[in-house]
């Protein structure tokens, strides 16, 4: 029953993504001065939103684990972090490709890009850290503390780099940047699609983490024989 629901959600996410791809590629008008490359934004920005949600989930799950000491929260934390790393990677790669055309360079050390990269490094470090700890409860405890440190670090990194002038375009959704309502609608339509996909991946990853714990238990049992 559960896995059927999961498949259904995955299918729905795929359908939504295909429908959004159709809108993005064939229905939306051209941007005034960017050419076709601006269409990357419909994946770039929602990926960042999704990554942000995943990072928040990881934080909440880490704190909850430390309070409740229930390994379910640890499972959620690791799944959310892994999803976050995937979406941060997508954000970085798509952004870099867009920057190659719009700015003429793949990369620049401005506040947004650099904090994004540091964020990626921190959460990838979290995943590496987990592989180095054998005992499940020690692993959960230590990585939860590290996750909290990583989260606290992100805004500080942000401010530390902001003193250099920022090259990234102003956020399009609030304030300075302007965006055509039709495009904004497409942007907001792709976010729930990616979120749904992320939720499905999250559920799969959580199930996997539980299976992996079972495997660890079996390994110990087999070892003791």
């Amino acid at each position, binding site marked *: 029953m559960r896995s059927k629901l999961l498949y259904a959600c995955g299918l729905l996410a795929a359908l939504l993504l295909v429908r959004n*791809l159709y809108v*993005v*590629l*064939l229905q939306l008008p*051209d*941007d005034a001065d*960017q*050419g*076709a*490359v*601006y*269409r*990357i934004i419909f*994946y*770039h920005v929602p*990926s960042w939103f999704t990554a942000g949600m995943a990072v928040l989930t990881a934080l909440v799950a880490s704190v909850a684990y430390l309070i409740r000491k229930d390994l379910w929260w640890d499972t959620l934390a690791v799944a959310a972090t892994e999803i976050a790393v*995937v979406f941060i*990677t*997508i954000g970085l*790669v*798509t952004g870099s*490709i*867009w920057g*190659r*055309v719009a700015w003429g360079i793949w990369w620049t050390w401005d506040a947004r890009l650099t904090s994004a990269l540091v964020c990626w490094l921190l959460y990838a470090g979290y995943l590496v850290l987990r592989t180095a700890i054998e005992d499940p409860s020690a692993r959960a405890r230590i990585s939860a503390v590290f996750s909290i440190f990583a989260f606290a670090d992100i805004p500080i990194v942000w401010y530390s780099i902001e003193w250099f002038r920022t090259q990234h375009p102003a956020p399009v959704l609030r304030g300075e940047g302007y965006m055509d309502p039709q495009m904004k609608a497409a942007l907001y339509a792709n976010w729930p699609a990616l979120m749904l*996909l992320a939720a499905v*991946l999250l559920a*799969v*990853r959580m*199930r*996997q983490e539980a*299976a*992996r714990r*079972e*495997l660890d238990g*079996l*390994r110990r*049992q*087999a070892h003791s*024989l």
Partner: protein
Amino acid sequence: MDQRGIEFMFYGLSSAWLLLAAYAVTLVVRERRIHEEIHRLRNLVEDRDRK
């Protein structure tokens, strides 16, 4: 559609899709490996128990 930068648009969109697909494939492969391993170990433990 405006053709300027269309190859880079293609790279951008396909990289997003490919990364997601690659992650999904890793998940599936990992899942399969874990289940095989669980199956194997369970058989091992049960065999030992019987003896």
